[in-house]
């Protein structure tokens, strides 16, 4: 008998994306450029995070018509974003047949208290996290993949670095603790003891962990891989740059050869103007997307 949507099948889908780059796209043309550059998936969006930031107002799920067009245009998996807690948007995307749903802080949260119960869906979900506690809470809600939140739409990698280092550091702390200490840690993190024991046994998160939120150059991608990311999401960094085709391909190469400075130097040449970045101190507290859905 066939069993669809088991956790193994959902988590397995993310495992197949490891070592790859997932690119934000807003048009069919961009999706084709991403596929041609070697992206392992595309994220179909109405606006990239930098434009969402600039436009303000309420950011919602993309128009289904546009998502379907992108699904038709490429053979690689297509992801799409829903607002945190917006289970109806998620039901719509599942009905459309998208391959992965990102319950994302980039869009305006629909529920300030609860995330979607992701166990109820056959389609897998990815969620953002800034630390181990957030990551494990999302996994207990059914997330089959985790990514750092970083600070989307800034072209500034500093927050993604902070979040990846934090998760890795907290995993190392878990590894050094005996069971009765884990009880206290579980309480402080707001996660179950069983989940922490699972992390201790495996020595890593129970699902794949990508980097996202501010990655704008091949060097940024390499940095995140060296910090232990399983792969890379690039939002505004590609299609807000001067030469998207070249930047896209360079980031794919840099993610694969993240530990080979010779190749990194080669692919980092001649990329043209990168996306303009934002310094964190210039962001007001209310403009920080990473504080959403914790």
């Amino acid at each position: 008998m066939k069993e669809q949507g088991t956790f193994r099948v959902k988590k397995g889908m993310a495992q197949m994306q490891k070592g790859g780059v997932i690119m934000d796209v807003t048009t069919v043309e961009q999706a084709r450029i991403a596929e041609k550059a070697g992206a392992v998936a595309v994220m179909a969006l109405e606006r990239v995070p930098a434009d969402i930031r600039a436009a303000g107002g309420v950011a919602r799920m993309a128009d289904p018509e546009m998502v379907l067009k992108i699904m038709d245009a490429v053979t690689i998996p297509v992801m799409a974003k829903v607002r945190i807690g917006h289970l109806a948007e998620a039901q719509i995307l599942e009905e459309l047949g998208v391959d992965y749903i990102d319950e994302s802080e980039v869009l305006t949260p629909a529920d300030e208290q609860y995330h979607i119960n992701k166990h109820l869906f056959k389609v897998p979900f990815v969620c953002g996290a800034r630390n181990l506690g957030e990551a494990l809470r999302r996994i207990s809600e059914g997330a089959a993949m985790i990514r750092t939140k970083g600070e989307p739409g800034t072209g500034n990698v500093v927050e993604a670095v902070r979040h990846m280092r934090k998760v890795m550091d907290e995993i190392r702390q878990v590894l050094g603790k005996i069971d009765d200490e884990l009880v206290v840690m579980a309480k402080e993190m707001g996660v179950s003891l069983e989940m922490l024991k699972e992390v201790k046994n495996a020595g890593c998160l129970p699902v794949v962990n990508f980097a996202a939120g501010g990655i704008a150059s091949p060097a940024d991608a390499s940095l995140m891989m060296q910090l232990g990311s399983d792969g890379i999401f690039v939002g505004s960094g590609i299609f807000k740059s001067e030469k998207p085709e070249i930047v896209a391909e360079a980031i794919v190469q840099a993610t694969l050869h993240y530990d080979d400075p010779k190749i990194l130097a080669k692919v980092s040449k001649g990329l043209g103007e990168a996306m303009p970045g934002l310094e964190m101190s210039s962001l007001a507290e209310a403009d920080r997307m990473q504080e959403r859905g914790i």
Partner: protein
Amino acid sequence: MKIGVLSVQGAVSEHLDHLIRCGVEAVAVKNISMLDEVRGLILPGGESTTIGKLIEIFGLAESIKKRSLEGSLAVFGTCAGMILMARDISDGIDEQPRLGLLDIKVKRNAFGRQRESFETELEFDSFGYPLVGVFIRAPIIEKTGENVEILAKLPEGIIAAKKDNLLTTSFHPELTDDIRVHQYFVEMCKRV
């Protein structure tokens, strides 16, 4: 004996873990010099367009083709690996890169999108009891050429096949704890 896992993109560490459990030396193969050291190579699941494109850039594709054709390298492709191995792809994109090692015709994403991905028990060759196959946006073999041995089937079509030094499955044996398919491949590597 050293067996490699093509380490470009996809489920590399899962295959390495299974090979280690089979008692062989497992290495992640990223370049030609590492390929020279192995007797068998697993092409893991991942995105076939991405993997295919990247192995062409670095000349790995040529080496894999050459050594498998002369019979000095056993190759096992899972899922995306099956697509790379196939001589014929019924619905690939125009520039779908491929190694074309095995005389089979495959259809990509044959069961549908991720929503339709599944796991199921199946009979595999002469195994004493069924194994669990995990299918993720999996391809299917529509047609096999001469002397290609069919190892497993579902109502939708062929999901595992073998010829000489070449083995392929639509499903992911690296995602379950069962190592029988990997042991099967290790035995094939011993014979090259």
